[in-house]
């Protein structure tokens, strides 16, 4: 199948998924026990003003009208206006999305850089000291809650040692790179690194455990495959057996899990963003939930859903590159 056809197919899939997500998110509002009007409008507002406000927000319409309006808006790329700040959600979200993506990518990097070597060391030294150490480390990672690790890191590394800032994000990656490339000024990128390190470690470590264990068990599975014996029988150096063949095959499920996890990175970012006051979608979402700012809640969730779909698409393409048995048809020959 050509890439074009595959893209068309996946786009249609993606639209269906996004629409379903949209509808569920919309329905949430009606299931939610909190009455929007009373949450939004202070009790001392006079009834007439209250009526006109409700009318203004379109809350007097039956649900299907609201739904159609809402869908119509999304299709046109309009996520509505925040109840609270009256600023367009598009605007707000666009400002926030890069921060979250940066954090998710950085956390992915942290987890990959730590977990794959750990997994390889574990598998090649099975039932020996390095393996136990790696397992212990992995266990530690998985049993430490994100927020707790975040707070600990803030206390130890930022407050006591003063190595990294406790919170915030001075520069976006984009601006930092502009500064670097256009002006040759490294200040931005250093600031960016300086601020993202702790949140990325906090978010990444949780997945290190999972990915280390996955890499280890995949490597062990692969090492007991018949083809490894054949590679050895033909005299291939052990380095090549391990790294060229075994590791490559072990990475196939690791990539899948990474792709799936990327979505959870965004979810995990919610907690981490709050701890580090990282101005991303998560922090934004929590704030909107507190103020029952439905357009913002909806908008954020939709953007997260769309990011998900896009990433899965990317992972599928990546798949065909690392595993020749997988074709774009999604079936092996």
């Amino acid at each position, binding site marked *: 199948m050509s890439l074009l056809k595959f893209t068309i197919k996946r786009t249609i899939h993606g639209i269906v998924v996004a629409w379903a997500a949209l509808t569920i998110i919309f329905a949430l509002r009606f299931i939610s026990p909190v009455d929007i009007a009373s949450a939004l409008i202070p009790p001392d507002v006079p009834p007439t003003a209250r009526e006109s406000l409700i009318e203004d927000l379109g809350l007097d319409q039956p649900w299907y009208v609201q739904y159609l309006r809402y869908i119509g808006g999304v299709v046109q790329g309009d996520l509505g206006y925040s109840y609270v700040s009256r600023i367009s959600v598009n605007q707000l979200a666009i400002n926030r999305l890069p921060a979250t993506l940066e954090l998710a990518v950085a956390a992915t990097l942290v987890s990959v850089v730590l977990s794959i070597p750990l997994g390889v060391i574990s598998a090649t030294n099975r039932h020996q000291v390095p393996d136990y150490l790696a397992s212990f480390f992995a266990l530690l990672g998985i049993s430490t809650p994100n927020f707790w690790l975040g707070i600990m890191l803030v206390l130890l590394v930022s407050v006591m040692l003063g190595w990294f800032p406790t919170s915030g994000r001075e520069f976006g990656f984009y601006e930092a790179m502009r500064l670097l490339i256009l002006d040759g000024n490294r200040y931005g990128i250093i600031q960016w690194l300086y601020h993202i390190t702790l949140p990325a470690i906090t978010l990444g470590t949780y997945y290190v455990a999972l990915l280390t264990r996955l890499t280890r068990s995949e490597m062990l599975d692969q090492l007991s495959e*018949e083809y490894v014996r*054949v*590679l*050895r*029988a033909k*005299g*291939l150096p052990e380095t*090549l057996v391990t790294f060229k063949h075994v590791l490559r095959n072990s990475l196939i499920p690791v990539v899948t899990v990474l792709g799936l996890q990327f979505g959870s990175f965004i979810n995990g970012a919610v907690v981490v963003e709050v701890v580090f006051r990282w101005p991303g979608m998560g922090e934004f979402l929590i704030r909107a939930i507190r103020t029952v700012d439905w357009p913002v809640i909806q908008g954020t969730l939709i953007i997260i859903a769309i990011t998900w779909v896009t990433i899965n698409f990317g992972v599928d393409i990546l798949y065909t590159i690392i595993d020749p048995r997988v074709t774009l048809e999604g079936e092996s020959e």
Partner: protein
Amino acid sequence: MTHNDASTTSVQRSAGTDNEPDFGPNTLLKVRNLSTRFFTDEGQVNAVESLDFEVKEGEVFGIVGESGSGKSVTGLSILDLIESPGRITDGEIWFRNRSLADEFNEQQSQAVRDEFVNLLELPESVHRSLRGNSFSMIFQDPMSSFDPTSTVGEQIAEAVEVQQRTSSNPRSARSRTQGYGFKSMVLGSILPSKSFVTEPSMERAIELLELVGIPDPKKRAQEYPHQFSGGMLQRAMIAQALAGEPDLLIADEPTTALDVTIQAQILSLLSDIQEERGMSVILITHNLGVVARVADRLGVMYAGEIAERGTLKEIFENHTHPYTAGLLGSIPEIDEAERLRPIPGNVPSLLDHEMGDRCYFADRCPKAMEECMEKPPEYEINDDHRVRCYLANREFDEDRSIRDHFDGEGGEPS
């Protein structure tokens, strides 16, 4: 009841005897007293037990037996491919290799006799460096024998490359990594010029594919294993095993996973190549038809031992061991349809604590006698024929039969 009254023609080789190996003028490999065990949770598995056999230059030696009799473990032991929880616990594997013999004559003379070296006494790295270029192995299931994510051509080229690097490096400089360590590996994956597989070895791989009868070798070399049929992939595996021009090829059930028409193609390919190159082959199979087709001599394995060995003719027409007879009697042939005479009972487990110290076949043997409660030695019937059974020097005696003691379950309700 002891039976050390073995006749003068009998040769007894019990574990631990330190007699000198004697090599014939055209011996290539001589395995003596080899034991390989697996130390599993259920207990010690004696997969190969005091095994003796010899492979001559340019011959096809067949090893036949039922599954679990230790055929594969024998092959893997020769290549030092036994993995934990398994270990070669005893024995000698003498292999003719003049340059190695010269090299180790000084430092490790106990590992050298004439032109032969005892692989099990050499440093592990030296033993392993012989893989691919002195001996190589092909396996039963071609589909699982190739790395699914590398092209077939690349994998064969690797084998070519191994051979070339071995012959260009002095042995003493070779380390565990055979001159290709982690650094070269990282560089190789980034810089094509430093990659393990070079252009000439890829070309050689294509030649090899052509040699084993794969059409469009250039194109097929760039394909992945799953794009090949089973038969084609088995050809590719043979090509890969030939890359190092080995003196000995061990083929472990090379046609078992294939259909008969493809099996016939592969067998004739194997014997053509063997004849052309004068290489020796150990052909491991459970199929007596397959050995009949290509082997010169054969050993019948049972419970980790070679029960009987000799030329094809001796084994097929003049066998002594009741197991050999049973095996031959239980194959349905396509030429006749007479009633089969199966061997009663089941294949033994090989667990050390269940094996006992009697003839391993005693509980299934229709001719088991009192003396069989003690392990029989290996008797020499003639130059070409040895057997591990008391019937080599005495007739079956009904009076001493112990058949009633065992009631092999699941046997023929005759």
